[in-house]
Each structure stands twice: as structure tokens, then as C-alpha cells.
């Protein structure tokens, strides 16, 4: 009996580690930008390219930056969630249209609804690199002082909103 105790203990430990590992998503790389100032940008607006918006224009409010593209499959999955969330008017959502064709992007918004206050055009993906974007969609929660408080890699789900974004927004606005 005692003979089996050690292998059993090893098995339990290994299964424990493997089970823990299964719950981790290796694609989720923690961002070093959390609690750091959001990288500066000045970008043209998708619907009106003559106009530009910079990060300093958004100081003083809590806002979400959602990186999206019309070619991105997961963005499509995420989109209805954002549209629904935008209707609640809790926090403004700004889009960063990442490496997209503006015509495609506009058609996409016309067809599927537009949850964004406005979308900024990052045609070459340069600002995306500054924000450490490596897989669209990505979403950043930025506070009144322009500090990134939270980053979601991959599609925002109703769970993400309920469990992460809403409590943080409440705290940041309070």
C-alpha cells in the first residue's frame, strides 16, 4: 500500500498543475501598460478623416478604447455585445480601426451598428504597436488621467463587462 503513495502523490501534483494550466490562456500576455499612461496618438476620425482626435482630447473622462477591424472574425462575435453595452450609456466607447480599409470599416458599421462615439483610423497599425496590440480585438479601459486601468485581449463578452469593466468603471468614476 505504502508503495503506491509516492506515485499517487506525484500524479495528483502533476494533474493539479496540468488542470491549472488548462485554465490559462497562453494567448493572453499580460500587458506592461496596465497602470501606465495611455500612449499618445493623434489620428483621423473614420467618418470624417479631415478631423483628428488625440488622446489629450479625451482626458477627464473614463473611456473604453476598442481595437477592431472589419477583417477580424472575433470582432464580429464581439460587436453585438458592444452595441448592447453602448446603449446603456455607462462609458463611452472609442474605436481604433486597426489596419483596415476605411470603406470596408464604414460598411461594416452601417451593416452591424455603430457602438462607437467615433472610430480612429490606424491604417498602418503604428498606434496599435504603441498600445501593444497583437490580436484584434483588444479593449482598454482608460481613466480620467489617461492611465490604462484594464486590458481585455480577445472579444469582450457580457461576463467581461459584468465582472471586470463595470466594477472598475464604477470605482474610477466614484
Amino acid at each position, binding site marked *: 500500500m505504502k508503495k503506491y503513495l509516492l506515485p499517487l502523490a506525484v500524479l495528483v501534483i502533476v494533474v493539479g498543475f496540468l488542470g491549472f494550466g488548462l485554465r490559462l490562456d497562453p*494567448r493572453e*500576455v499580460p500587458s*506592461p501598460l496596465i497602470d501606465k499612461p495611455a500612449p499618445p496618438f493623434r489620428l483621423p476620425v473614420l467618418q470624417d478623416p479631415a478631423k483628428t482626435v488625440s488622446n489629450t482630447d479625451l482626458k477627464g473622462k473614463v473611456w473604453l478604447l476598442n481595437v477592431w477591424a472589419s477583417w477580424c472574425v472575433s470582432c464580429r462575435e464581439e460587436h453585438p455585445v458592444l452595441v448592447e453595452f453602448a446603449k446603456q450609456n455607462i462609458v463611452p466607447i472609442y474605436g481604433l480601426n486597426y489596419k483596415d480599409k476605411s470603406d470596408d470599416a464604414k460598411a461594416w458599421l452601417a451593416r452591424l451598428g455603430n457602438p462607437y462615439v467615433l472610430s480612429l483610423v490606424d491604417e498602418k497599425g503604428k498606434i496599435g*504597436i504603441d*498600445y*501593444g496590440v497583437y490580436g484584434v480585438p483588444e479593449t482598454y479601459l482608460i481613466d480620467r488621467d489617461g492611465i490604462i486601468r484594464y486590458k481585455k485581449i480577445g472579444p469582450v463578452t457580457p461576463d467581461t463587462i459584468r465582472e471586470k469593466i463595470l466594477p472598475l468603471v464604477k470605482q474610477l468614476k466614484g
Partner: protein
Amino acid sequence: MRSALTAVLAAVALLAAAPGSAQMREAPPLAADPAVEARVMHLASVLRCLVCQNQTLADSNAELAVDLRNQLREQVKAGRSDEQIVDYLVTRYGDFVLYRPPMKATTALLWVGPFLLLVGGLAALGLTLRRRARAQGAMAEADGGAGDAAARARAKALLDEPGRSA
């Protein structure tokens, strides 16, 4: 007949290969300056592509890797040092972007872990071998110290025993 067929086949093969060979030109150099390109490739080979996580930026053809290689090239051309460029990426993507993780408190287990496992394995092996040797020694002693010779004689007696043939 057969040689004619071979000749025809060879001709067809040559014809098929001809347009291919016309297309097989050297890839154009990525930058006019080979020294810049060498540094870009060196940097790209120590940085991780975040899309295909087990490839370096140099190996990966993901779009982000292409963009990041262009970033590297721009910065090399702008005269920034290797450390500055690596820092640029680490501030954006974190230590994960380094193919060789830095030695820190949080990465100590990563670096030391394999050696710990090796030492543990060797210790277990040593213990097992010693225990086995001791057990064999004890068995030999139980035989009255005669050891192998006695055991062999006993086996021989058993085998030679009449009426025991299989």
C-alpha cells in the same frame, strides 16, 4: 520505344521547368544597406512574435511580425542602439517579447526549475540504486554468504531434478 518515351518525358519535364526557372529570381534585398539588415535580423531573432508565440520575429510571417520588423528597421536606420530598440518593444509588449527571458525574481523558477528537476531525479536514482544494492546484499547474506555460486547450484539442482521436465 522505351528510350523514345523517356526522351519525350524528359522534353516535357524541361518545358514544364522552363517558365519556373524564369521566375526563380533572387528575392530583392530588403534594405539597401546590408549592415542595417544584419542588425534587423539579429534583433528579430532574439524577439518573440506575439501572434505565433513559438516563433521569433525573424521566423514569423504573421502580419504583426512583418510590421514589427519594419519598426526594427526604421529604428536601426534612425541610429538607435539595440538596447533602446529592445526596450521599445518591452515597454509595449512586456518581457514576453524577449525570446530569452530576463533573470528576475518572477522568472527564477523558469531558469532554475530544470536544474532542480535534474538534481531531484539524480537523487531519486541514487537512492533507488542504493536501496536495490542493499536489498541484493541482504539476499546474498541470507544465502549464507555464498551468493551467486550457491544460487546457481540450487537452480541447477532444480533443473536437473528428474520428473520436472516441462
